[in-house]
């Protein structure tokens, strides 16, 4: 045991995360952002989707990222889940290499391992997170198989437990999610995301586009799961009421930068930054 080994207090640490589309120069980041009210670099026309993103996610905590379209909030999560390749910056997971390895630079095989066992992701569009050619049980089975579970009986047992937990009727375990309602598709996605008990769950606008009553059910489920499983969550939403309901802390984003960060109740009741004040006052 090395004398310098320390247990990291955080579950996820992000440092200087940056994503730029197109050819950029050394001034592209400086010339964009909330100060200039744009993501587009005037010199190179590159798009700075997000830049200099730093934050930590602690065990059992829910961190919200709120912002409007073009704020860069989804871009952050997509990079962390390896759907997008980052331009610069690093991310560290406490449960991977003791938090000393930049996961964004790992090999594809290692990224697959991280994605499968240490992270869960729920997309806004269920078609991104689920394979509609497989049954809902099969989608969950995929995660279990990739984690090395090759016993069909055990796979089905676990899949049916997860579906029960997310209130999807187990009678539909062998049906494709194709014919499920939007809310049920999301719940299957959630079941799949937590299949391997990952320490971190990413939720990217998961209730946007759903009917209000359905939204409510999905949000309640997420809240209960968080309470029961103590998973750390990163909740991306443009909807402040979702943020209010689910999160402990919040990051407010505009034009690819974090403009304010703080406890969720403080952000909602005592916003400091002009943009946050605008957002909060825009709540219907």
């Amino acid at each position, binding site marked *: 045991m090395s004398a310098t080994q320390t247990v990291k207090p955080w579950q996820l640490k992000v440092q200087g995360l940056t994503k730029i589309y197109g050819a950029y120069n050394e001034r592209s980041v400086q010339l964009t952002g909330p100060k200039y009210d744009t993501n587009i670099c005037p010199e190179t026309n590159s798009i700075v989707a997000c830049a200099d993103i730093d934050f930590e996610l602690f065990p059992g905590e829910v961190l919200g990222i709120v912002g409007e379209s073009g704020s860069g909030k989804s871009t952050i999560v997509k990079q962390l889940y390896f759907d997008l390749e980052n331009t610069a910056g690093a991310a560290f997971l406490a449960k991977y290499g003791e938090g000393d390895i930049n996961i964004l630079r790992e090999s*594809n*095989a290692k990224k*697959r391992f991280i994605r499968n066992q240490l992270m869960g992701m729920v997309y806004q569009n269920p078609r991104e997170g689920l*394979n509609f*050619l*497989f*049954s809902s*049980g*099969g*989608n969950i*089975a*995929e995660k279990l*198989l*990739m984690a090395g579970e*090759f*016993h*069909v*009986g055990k*796979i*089905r047992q676990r899949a049916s437990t997860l579906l029960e937990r997310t209130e999807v009727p187990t009678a539909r375990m*062998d049906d494709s999610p194709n014919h499920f309602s939007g809310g049920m598709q999301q719940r299957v996605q959630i079941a799949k995301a937590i299949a391997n008990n990952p320490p971190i769950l990413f939720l990217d606008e998961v209730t946007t586009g759903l009917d209000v009553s359905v939204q409510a059910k999905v949000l309640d489920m997420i809240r209960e799961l968080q309470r029961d499983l103590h998973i750390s969550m990163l909740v991306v939403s443009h909807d402040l009421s979702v943020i209010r309901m689910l999160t402990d802390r919040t990051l407010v984003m505009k034009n690819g930068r974090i403009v304010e960060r703080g406890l969720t109740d403080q952000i909602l009741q005592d916003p400091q930054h002009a943009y946050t004040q605008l957002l909060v006052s825009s709540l219907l």
Partner: protein
Amino acid sequence: MIEAKKFQRSYNYAFIDEATKKEIRRKLLKAVCIPGYQVPYSSPEMPIARGWGTGGLHITLAIIGREDVLKVIDQGSDASVNACNLRDFIQSTAECAVTFDALEASIIQTRHRITEERLRADQIMVFQVPLPEPLRDVEPYEKKTREMHAEMDYAKMWVSLYEAYVQYGALMDGAGYPVMVNGRYIMSPSPIPRWDVPNLHDSDCIYLFGAGREKRLYAIPPHTQVQPLEFEDVRFHIERFLGTPCAHTGEELAFLDELYNDQGEKSHVINDSNYLDKLQAGEVVFQHINPYLTQIKDERNANR
């Protein structure tokens, strides 16, 4: 040079020109070095259409010599039309001897079956393969399947087996059961019946696979680990013919065809025609030995 009688045109020995033969041989070497990996190759034009065995033909013509003894079978039969045509073509362009005897041949080109008899270290079996990509059903894009093989990312394949089991109660009923070769690549063994799949494992002979239409070659060198894909609790099994012996020989421990006569009566006959001939002539045969077959043998002996 061979003088072709019909058109008075000269062809190279074994039809294919030497440069192309060299290319095919090099690709075959690569295939043998990476068991189960699909190697792209030139797949030159042949005087038969794609889908009729050009891949197998490419391999056979690239490796054959005048001293070779050739056997060609089509679903176990030496006498079928296609087998005859291929055999005549290869014999006339390679000027080699031909045989029906599996143990006499040095090269055996086959469509959809392995011989019932176990081949020796000095023999080569060449498979005609229609669809070399075992992942095609779960992933339509070639780019993605290549990535999946490169990264050993076979999750989708496993899920499709799970789904098949859940929907139909069996992992896979038909031919072309996917196998894991050398613990690394998932491979399609061509549409051979499940009966033949265990005989790919730890062989003495070399197995070469050619898919002409898809332009891929792959190989299983001798003594390679070849495992059918299965789950811990749902396992691979071969066909069973106990209780339906061959009508001519009474044999239950060989792969049998199910035949119906004009009156609608069902009978079973050994599929491998050379094996059937040998048994009927009372000759000694050297059948494959594998644990699945042994298990059925034991069962049969226990029932007697």
